[in-house]
Structure formats: C-alpha cells, structure tokens
C-alpha cells in the first residue's frame, strides 16, 4: 500500500487499458454505422412532410443537361439525380470549378415546400482517382469549358 511507485505504475497501466479500450470502440464500434451523411433524392422524396424546411444534405449526380447557370446573377439551378428520381436544386454564387454535368455533388440546405432544394453549400464529391487522360482526351478542357460558364458535355 505504501509503495507509491507501484501505485503510479498501476494507475498508468489501468489508464492505458481504458484508453486502448475506448480507442478500440471508436475504431471498431461502427459508431457511424447508422449516420446518414446525405439523402439521395429517392430517400428525400420518400420522407414526405418530414423533409421540408429541415437542415439536410442531399447527394447524387448532377443530372446531365439540367444545369442553368446565370453568370450575371451568379444564380445556379440544376437537378440532382439518383436512379430515376430528381430534385431541383437552387444555389447562389459561383459553383466549385470542378462542377459539371454528371459530377457527384452534395448540397446542404433545406427542401422547400415548393419542391426546390435551397442550397447553402454546394460541394463536389471528387473521387479518389487520379488518371492519366485517355487517348484523344485533352486535359483541362473540361475545366475551361466550365469556367466559361457553359454547360460542359
């Protein structure tokens, strides 16, 4: 009982075990298992009334051909698609430069009762792939066409 060094060691050992246990729980406990990072349009639409006017994230693909960009008013409208369902998204301000048709996006905002998703934050979901251009493809072309404000194809 009187050996303080022994007690100090014991304290450190017990604390280490607890710390390791908590870390194991963090890493393996699948804590984020039931977190929904973003709703797909299908999921959002199936929520019905509960989906309106709440802070939610919506994710999917920019529906090809749906992008309407008003460069003067910095006003962007496009549809987010997943499978067959689409949701119209309205966003203010310039989009990220990698924004284009078919790109994966996540928008944060509120789904209004008039059926428009009012986006406060538009994010590109860039894949982790880095690829050399395929034959005949010129790098950065998609960039430039996007920066001109047109809808890239």
């Amino acid at each position: 009982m009187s050996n303080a060094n022994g007690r100090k060691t014991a304290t450190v050992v017990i604390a280490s075990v607890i710390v390791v246990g908590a870390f194991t729980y963090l890493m393996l406990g699948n804590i984020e298992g039931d977190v929904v990072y973003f709703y797909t349009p299908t999921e959002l639409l199936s929520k019905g009334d509960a989906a309106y006017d709440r802070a939610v994230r919506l994710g999917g693909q920019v529906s090809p051909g749906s992008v309407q960009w008003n460069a003067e008013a910095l006003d962007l409208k496009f549809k987010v698609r997943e499978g067959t369902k689409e949701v119209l998204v309205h966003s203010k301000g310039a989009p990220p430069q990698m924004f284009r048709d078919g790109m994966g996006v996540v928008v944060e905002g509120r789904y209004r009762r008039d059926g428009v998703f009012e986006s406060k934050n538009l994010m590109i979901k860039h894949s982790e792939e880095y690829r050399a251009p395929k034959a005949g493809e010129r790098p950065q072309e998609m960039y430039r066409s996007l920066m001109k404000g047109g809808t890239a194809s």
Partner: protein
Amino acid sequence: MTASTMPLAAASDRRSGLPWGWIAVGGVLALVAAQVYGVLTSPPDRDMGHLQKIMYLHVPAAWNAFIAFFVVAVASLRYLWKGRAADDLLAASAAEIGSLLTGLTLALGMLWGKPTWGIWWTWEPRTTSTAVLFFMFLAYLILRKFVDDPERRAQWSAVVGILGALNVPIVYMSVRWWRTLHQVQGSPMTLDSTYYIPLRINAVALMIVLVAFIAHRYRSAMITQAADDLEDRAALMEGGSRA
C-alpha cells in the same frame, strides 16, 4: 564530474556521430531530383492537369509530419518511463521539424485548393485536422518556451506531447464526420503508377531530410545542454572555492 561529461560523450557517440550535415544535403538533392523526375515523367492528370504535381511535395510533407509527430509521442513516452533528458531533446527536435512540415503541407494544400476546389481554404477533414495538428505542435513548442526549469519543461512537454498524440486520431475522426467530402486516401489501386511511383520516391527523399534534420537538431541540443551543465558546474565550483 563524470555526470557532466556524459552528455558530451553521448552527443559524439557512434550513432549521432554520423555526418548528418552531409546526409541532409544528400537528402535535399535526392528530393530535388525526385521532384524533377516526378514533374517530367508523369502526364497531366485527367481532371487537374499539371496541378497534380503539387502532390509530390504536399503528400510526402504530410506523411513525414505524421512520422515526426509519432517520434514526438514515442520519445515523450520514453522520457516519462526512463527520465532521460536525451528523449526530451529528441521529442523537441522532432516537434520543430514536424511543425515546419505541417506548415508546408498546409501552404501547399492551399495552393492546390485554390485552382481545384476554387477556394484557398476549405473546412474539410484533411485540411482541418492538419491545421489542428499544426496548432498542437505550436502549442507544444510555445509551452517549451514558457517553462524555464529543464526538468519541468521536459516532463510537462512529454505529457502535452502524449495527450496531443492521443487526440490526433480523434480529431481526424470527428472532423471527417463533420465534413465527409475529401477524397479518401489514395492507394496504388486508385492512383496510376505513373503518379504513384514518383510520389513514393519523393516521400522517401523527404524522409531522409527529416531524419537528418532531427538528428542534427538533436545533436546540437545535446551539445548545448552539455555546455550548460559544464557552465553550471564551473559556476558552482568557482563559488565554492571563493567562499
């Protein structure tokens, strides 16, 4: 007497007696060569074009900063275990270089972020947790500046280093949950070998620089400390003979 000469002896022992200065120069040269190799051999990325080349310094800097932080944590644990001043100096040296590399990672990340994401700074997991890591390094170094007594400084910074290290994975995890949109870690599967190989070479070259710098800082810290010890002894003896 013997106690005062010990750090000097340790400072010039075989391991730390390697020509670290030359190794550092060699490492820097290797890094420059690897950068040139990377820029010349790999084609522009499909989406990012030549901007992708920033990767060759940005990613190795981040990796090596993590290695430095790991050294800080291990040396701190060892200090608390054994109480050897040398471990404290090792942790301090690693923290200095680590904070430098973290700063470099952040700066390059911003340069990369502007053209690709369209913003200098974004609140996503990698940038944010790297910034937190940077702050923890800085707090560690500032703590060292604010504490004068060497034993106290060593023990406190060891404790701060260990708790900081415990926090790194939690910070990363929480920030990843908070913003989940950064690309996940690249691997040979998602990265064409034409990018992957130069990346690895650059990382190794930077690691040589890192090790050489830590060794160099460590050695000069040891010598400074030995000199301080000798000075203390001399002052003590002089005082003794005068009285």
